[in-house]
């Protein structure tokens, strides 16, 4: 019946806010504006409802966070100590994995060869696989350079996990850029990345996609 009503008039603003609240509260994963809109009756303005909703929850025990283009309710970080029971034993990431993750985040889109160039060692497939499995890293577009290497980028789940609104909010990003440390300079020094050239051969790549 409600759906029929909505053909004629969108619910009042306060009601729309309640709806966004209910839908967002119910989901463990962030929902995009588009997803919210499809869930609401016709004619609702999810964006406007979100503005008032975010304001309503600011400073509360749970609040609305923005993750990429999506929104989610999350507990306030200062209350994390109350949640021992919910704390999930994080998989211990190797140093290689953590560094690789940071390089992907700060240099994305980045090829395997570039990661190896920065770290100075070959990146094992397992390391990248682990990050992909965690859904923190995914394949980006192929680089339009010889060999058309695949690139890696970070995901929305990555942003969600580290409570980042976007990859632009990575800590120290501006300073690193200003210092030229995110430039892609060609290398002269012998690092093992160069020895690992085979990995970037066309065969290596197609293998990646045939998995």
């Amino acid at each position, binding site marked *: 019946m409600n759906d029929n009503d909505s053909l004629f008039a969108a619910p009042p603003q306060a009601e729309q806010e309640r709806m966004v609240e209910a839908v967002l509260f119910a989901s463990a994963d962030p929902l995009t504006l588009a997803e919210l809109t499809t869930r609401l009756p016709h004619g609702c303005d999810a964006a406007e409802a979100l503005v008032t909703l975010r304001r309503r929850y600011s400073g509360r025990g749970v609040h609305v966070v923005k993750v990429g283009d999506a929104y989610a309710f999350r507990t306030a970080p200062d209350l*994390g100590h109350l949640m021992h029971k919910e704390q999930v034993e994080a998989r211990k990431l190797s140093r290689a994995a953590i560094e690789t*993750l940071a390089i992907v985040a700060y240099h994305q889109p980045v090829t395997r060869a570039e990661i190896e160039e920065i770290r*100075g060692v070959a990146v094992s497939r397992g390391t990248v696989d682990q990050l992909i499995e965690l859904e923190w890293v995914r394949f980006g577009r192929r680089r339009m350079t010889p060999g058309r290497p695949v690139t890696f980028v970070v995901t929305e789940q990555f942003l969600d996990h580290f409570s980042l609104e976007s990859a632009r909010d990575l800590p120290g990003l501006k300073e690193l850029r200003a210092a030229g440390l995110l430039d892609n300079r060609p290398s002269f020094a012998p690092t093992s990345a160069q020895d690992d050239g085979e990995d970037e051969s066309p065969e290596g790549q197609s293998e990646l996609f045939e998995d």
Partner: protein
Amino acid sequence: MADEWAETPERLSVADRLLAEALIVDVDGFEGPLDLLLTLSRTQKVDLRKISVLQLAEQYLVFVSKAGALRIELAADYLVMAAWLAYLKSRLLLPPDPTEDGPSAEDLAAHLAYQLERLQAMREAAAQLMARDQKGRDFFARGLPEDVTRRKKISYSATLMDLMQAYARIRTRDDFRPFVMDRNNVFTMEEALERLRGLMGYAGQWTDLTSWLPAGWETTPERRRSATAAHFAAILELTKAGHLEVRQGENFAPIQVRKRDGGRG
């Protein structure tokens, strides 16, 4: 010694010192030559941008020769780096050769310093990233998400034409029944069903479908085909109804049948 330490803005931590002392024996602790170089550069106690690459090259070469003296096997890439640094060192010490192409020794040194600085920066960035509030550790998603239930609503479509054609199809069979002359070589599925209902109680074991054919129907190819097809169709019906099980090893392999355990018949 103590004075010298006091002068440096960044005193080496105990861990760093232990690391430096362990250099000569513990090569596995390093992730390649660049990591080792970065660790060595800490002993210069200066900003990475002001590092002396020449001094660093010396340190590295000392490390490699010590490792050699201790008969520690160094991975090839450590040795490649050693050779390159020896070359770089010689070029840094000698006046530039105007005939030589490519980057100058200073360019090479600057790039190495850049690489070290960049690696260090990424390590710090990684540490900062991991120090952020993390989901499942510092903040949490809804513990009891109320998932969207997807109600699949299937709408079946049938037109009046479908309906009439279906009816026509059934009635046509009746209309034509009297005119069918030759049924001698046709074994109907009803007949097969009838037979199988009686026989299937005995099929406790896997049995070839062909062995179920009635006597007198395996003689001519025409009769055998009809009987086989009818029995096969009947078996499918009975399998669908849960009375039988059917299997076939591979394409064209014999079709085998047996009574289903606890079957409804």
